[in-house]
């Protein structure tokens, strides 16, 4: 960590507004040579906007950008490449129809249009880069055939190959497996060693403490503090982010499980790789489902919801065997599924909140298919009040809400079906801390009211804090069921397949 006089990147008073809404109001930030500088903040704090300013995707309304002490008047995506800035976005910005080699080529080669494409050169370079980061991906495979983490690795290979001096990583580990995460960390440390500055954005505090040198917290479009990680602790960071001391995030569980609502006997689905899952969920119980990404948890959720129907085993609801072959079946039988990808699957952004909330109960609230606007509005108002959705009214489009409030709308849609079983898939992913805590309270309350909850989550503290029991999946199978008060180590060990207490690998 060498403190060079001119920082790699220095931002002073960066401001940016969208349609009158001030997303950034004077952000200061600097990045030194050979430093990993973490950027932290709630959703909507302005992290993504700041990144887009640095990569030239947005033009700032005010403030100055300096690179190695030189003032930059204008930045565009083409120019940032020139300045040696590379960015790994949360959603991989790749070309799905093209091969990995070509993806890397298009990023790294000069943008002169009238030059011959060196196909062999592209392949070797891609192979080299992928090898450097330890990714086992063929340069010839099409990106669309890759999994999300694999695509992320291709992004990282691009950044590496660009010889960038400033590398921005926007939640790079969100969808990586443990192993890939370790590889990534190794790559980041490598980069740091070679003098590259890394801006590292993550919600996972433990990663920041593992990896970063300094951390800057953004709140409401302003930087509220930059500290060396050695000088700060988790509690302090969270306090900076939310602007208040957070005593405990997880509401206490008062488990009084009732009768068995859902019982699975050897349920499997070839198409999605779920194999022989046997479990029970009782009324009033929260069953947390932990595991690594790709362990088959979301897939199990989708099997239960009829999106990819089970082809083996038995599903029993309230003791009766049922066949769930479509989402409609699931809804009719009282199964609700709050999906993982809120913006694509959970809420229709262009439609009013009220319409979103009634989508799953068309048959019930609109008998004979005729719309009843009054009833719909009343229902929406009730849920807006109940779940404390922050909005100006039921007619507000879903897209006008923040992530957490969108999640509440998604939740309201499914609560309106009066389900017996509620499946939550990553209920608080990408949700800011305040809303996260509110959602936890709601879920806890629902369970108390007798709902059976199956909660899929990659956020280990969440699983530990919320669950009455914890199921751990690995490779499409349910490998163990642990009590709710298990410790993180036990759950992780089961997820990773290590033999541990209670684990039965």
């Amino acid at each position, binding site marked *: 960590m060498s403190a060079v006089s001119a920082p790699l990147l220095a931002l002073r008073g960066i401001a940016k507004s969208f349609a009158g*809404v001030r997303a950034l109001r004077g952000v200061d930030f600097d990045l030194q*040579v050979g430093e990993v500088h973490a950027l932290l903040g709630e959703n909507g704090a302005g992290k*993504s906007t700041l990144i887009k300013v640095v990569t030239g995707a947005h033009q700032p309304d005010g403030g100055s950008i300096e690179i190695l*002490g030189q003032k930059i008047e204008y930045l565009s995506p083409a120019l940032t490449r020139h*300045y040696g800035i590379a960015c790994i976005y949360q959603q991989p910005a790749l070309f799905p129809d093209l091969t990995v080699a070509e993806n890397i080529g298009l990023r790294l080669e000069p943008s002169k249009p009238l030059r011959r494409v060196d196909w062999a050169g592209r392949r070797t370079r891609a192979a080299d880069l992928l090898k450097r980061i330890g990714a086992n991906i063929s340069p010839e495979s099409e990106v669309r055939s890759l999994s999300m983490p694999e695509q992320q690795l291709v992004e990282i290979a691009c950044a590496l190959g660009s010889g960038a001096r400033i590398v921005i990583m926007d939640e790079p580990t969100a969808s990586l497996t443990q192993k890939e995460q370790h590889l990534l960390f190794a790559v980041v440390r490598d980069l740091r060693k070679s003098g590259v500055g890394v801006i590292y954005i993550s919600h996972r505090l433990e990663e920041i403490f593992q990896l970063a040198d300094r951390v800057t917290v953004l709140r409401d479009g302003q930087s509220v503090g930059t500290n060396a990680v050695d000088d700060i602790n988790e509690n302090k960071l969270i306090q900076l982010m939310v602007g208040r001391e957070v005593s405990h995030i997880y509401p206490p569980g008062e488990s009084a499980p009732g009768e068995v609502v859902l019982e699975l006997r050897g349920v499997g689905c070839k198409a999605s790789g779920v194999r022989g899952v046997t479990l029970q969920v009782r009324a009033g119980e929260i069953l947390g489902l932990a595991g690594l990404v790709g362990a088959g948890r979301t897939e199990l959720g989708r099997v239960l919801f009829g999106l990819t129907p089970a082809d083996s085993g038995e599903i029993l609801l309230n003791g009766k065997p049922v066949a769930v072959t479509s989402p409609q079946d699931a809804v009719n039988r009282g199964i609700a599924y709050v999906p993982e990808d809120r913006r*694509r699957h959970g809420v229709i952004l262009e439609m009013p909140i009220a319409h979103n909330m009634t989508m799953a109960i068309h048959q019930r609230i609109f008998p004979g298919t*005729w*719309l009843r606007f009054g009833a719909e509005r009343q229902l929406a108002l009730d849920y807006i009040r109940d779940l404390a959705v922050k909005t100006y009214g039921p007619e507000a*489009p879903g897209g006008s809400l923040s992530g957490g409030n969108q999640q509440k709308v998604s939740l309201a849609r499914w609560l309106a*079906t009066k389900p017996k079983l509620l499946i939550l898939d990553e209920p608080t992913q990408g949700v800011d801390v305040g809303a996260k805590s509110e959602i936890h309270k709601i879920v806890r309350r629902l369970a108390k009211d007798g709902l059976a909850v199956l909660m899929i989550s990659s956020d280990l503290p969440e699983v530990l804090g919320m669950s009455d029991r914890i199921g751990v999946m690995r490779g499409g199978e349910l490998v163990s069921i642990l009590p709710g008060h298990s410790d993180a180590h036990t759950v992780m060990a089961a997820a990773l397949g290590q033999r541990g207490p209670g684990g039965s690998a």
Partner: protein
Amino acid sequence: MSSPTSSPPGWKAALRSHEFILLAVLMAEWVSFYFAGTHHTSHGTFGFGTADAQADILRHTVEIGLLALVMTPIILTGGIDLSVGSVMCFSEIVFGKLWRDAHMPIPIAATGALLTGAAAGGLNALLITWLRLPPLIVTLGTYSIFRGLAEAVTRGADVFAEFPASFTFLGEKSWLGVPVQVYVFVVVAIAVWLLVHRTTWGRSFRAIGYAPEGTRFAGIPVERRLALAYVLAGTVAALAGLIYASRLNQVTAADGTGYELAAITAVVLGGTSIFGGSGTVHGTLLGWVAVAVLSEGLAYANLPRELGGMLTGVLLILALSASILPKVLSNWRARRHTGTSTSQPPPPAST
């Protein structure tokens, strides 16, 4: 990207104003053609401003109006149906064949035609939902095949004509001064309006248009909803074909050529987004009437009728630009504001 939060959105207002502007255009057309295309003589009034002329404008365009009506739900789902003109023609041919060559009574032949239309719509729906193919290419395929079949069945030349009066009343007679087919049209229009604006089906069309996957995740049977839209389009296309056949008292393999584009024009002009989701049936009706009055009114005003097509094209671009221009302008302004001067890259770092 931070999303702006509290403050009611402007898109609804814009949508509303779109229809008002269209209504104003229509009124302007009507008034100017009334003055330019009507003449009074000692024998009475002639030209555009007569009930007959208005009725004829409706009669001449009712088929396109029907196609536009049922194209609306399809475009709301984010789809498109290029095959309606061909399906309309092929259904007519089936009708002609059944009546003339199979000697079936008119009602049975007409039912046969409607079933053919429904089946053709069903084929579109099947390919779109089952194989998850883009509607544009599916209906491009069915567009060619139904036109091709129509030509093959008629050997490119056979013509069905001289239908009995029990059939031609549909296209030629009037009740209470209003052409018979207009009653049919009004019934279909009300039905489609109710379907789109007052039922959960219509709500689902929009949802599918905005987010097909999201709709599936909400437990709505997307395939069945899509199938309804396409089967409805096929059936009503066949109905339009029957009206067309009875109005002209003939059926040929060239009927309905280019009608699909005329229908799409009316829908898009009416403010329905080609990407799906937003749009209204009354907007489509306005778009359809605006085009119909324009193209026929010009002839009454002794102006070249080709002008109508040109103005339709221009109107279409204007309607689209109007909805998008404020955004584009603010973008440009923003870009100008930041300037475009590029500074020298910094010297290579020596680390």
